[in-house]
């Protein structure tokens, strides 16, 4: 019986993972499908915590421009680093981002979400406007998504702007603060990231 349940869970996860690879390419529909998929995953009581995290990570890696976000977050400091150090940063940032994203999504997964509109700002990016609905678990929050659309068939998320506050910019200034306080020593940032990933 337990084995049968395991097989069923595995099949469900596999099928839903395939779904996550094929979101709509229209930025508005893309955000709607992706967020609802992520929230449904996190609130699904039939999936273990490990499997939930795995699926969220799969969704994120396929639909967020993690590499560009990592470079943006590092700011101008990236221009002074050699290739090997940049590679190390890329690996650490991805782990940091995935852990932080999963944690943040869990914090907000009980809230209802609505996509309102989309505005194409240029050929390469569109801002999708959305909000969480006011409920007992929290007030209404306006969330804008910066979607990178250079490849129109494969939109990618680059930033979340919550009530006008950019999460990427906040993260970038956090990293800059650590570097500035430590004579721009990238190893201090690496240690901080490693500590975060380990916790």
């Amino acid at each position, binding site marked *: 019986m337990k084995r049968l349940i395991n097989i069923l869970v595995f099949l469900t996860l596999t099928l839903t993972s395939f779904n996550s690879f094929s979101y709509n390419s229209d930025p508005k529909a893309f955000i709607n499908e992706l967020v609802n998929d992520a929230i449904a995953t996190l609130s699904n009581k039939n999936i273990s915590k490990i499997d939930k995290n795995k699926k969220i990570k799969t969704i994120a890696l396929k639909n967020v421009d993690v590499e560009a976000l990592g470079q943006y977050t590092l700011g101008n400091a990236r221009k002074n680093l050699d290739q090997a150090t940049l590679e190390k940063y890329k690996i650490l940032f991805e782990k940091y981002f995935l852990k932080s994203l999963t944690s943040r999504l869990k914090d907000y997964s009980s809230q209802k979400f609505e996509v309102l509109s989309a505005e194409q700002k240029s050929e390469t990016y569109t801002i999708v406007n959305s909000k969480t609905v006011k409920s007992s678990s*929290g007030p209404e929050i306006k969330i804008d998504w910066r979607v990178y659309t250079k490849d129109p068939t494969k939109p990618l998320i680059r930033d979340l702007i919550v009530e006008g506050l*950019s999460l990427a910019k906040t993260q970038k200034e956090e990293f800059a603060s650590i570097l500035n306080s430590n004579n721009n020593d990238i190893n201090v940032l690496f240690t901080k990231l490693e500590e975060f990933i380990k916790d």
Partner: protein
Amino acid sequence: MRFKKSIVLITTCLLMLSSNLSAETEKECFEKVSRGVFKFNKGFDKAVLRPLAVLYNKLPEPVKTGTGNFTSNVGTLLTVPNHILQGQWKLAGESSASFFINSTIGILGFGNPAAKMGLKNQQEDVGQTLGAYGVSAGCYFVLPILGPTTIRDTIGMFADTFVDPFAHITLREKELLSVSGSDIDYYSVKGATSINFRADNMTNLDSLEKNSIDMYAALKSLYLQNRAQKISNTFSSEDSDEWNELNK
């Protein structure tokens, strides 16, 4: 008289310092001290503000909404003169109408019928007005209990008490249209505003603390972005140039 002179002198000095610092809003006044104050504020939050906000969140929804509406309606009294100072006549009219409707039909501001009529009521203060006139933020620092600020916003916060009719009748105990109050009223409303804000941001702040590798820097960034957005009255954070550099 001597007190008034000192205030003018301090304000002038701070404004000059603020202007000299140009647009370097990320500049710190005294980071080590600010980080120490930030630690103290975190302790205060953990021991006092957060527990109060947790209790507040357990209140029935209508009580919480009513309290939020009331404090926001009192805040409109500061908003109206600032809209006027910024030449935003339409918004000043809308805020005045909102205050009048909510204070009467909305029963002292506990209800918010003005919002249902489509009247906007965004909060404005002297710091924002100074920003709108081009006064730069000056350096950033953290005040005990009051939290993140800049030189411009500190001056603004102090000037608020002169511009705000509510502060006039409570803090200064002056009568206005036969209404008067005491400083207890002023601090009670400010306290309720803080608890309401903390309760509304329970998830946001808990999540930020859990996911930050330098929470001091994260809060500083959020504070400065928020103020910039309120001054420009826009609702998006644009940083296109740097993103465009990363286009593959």
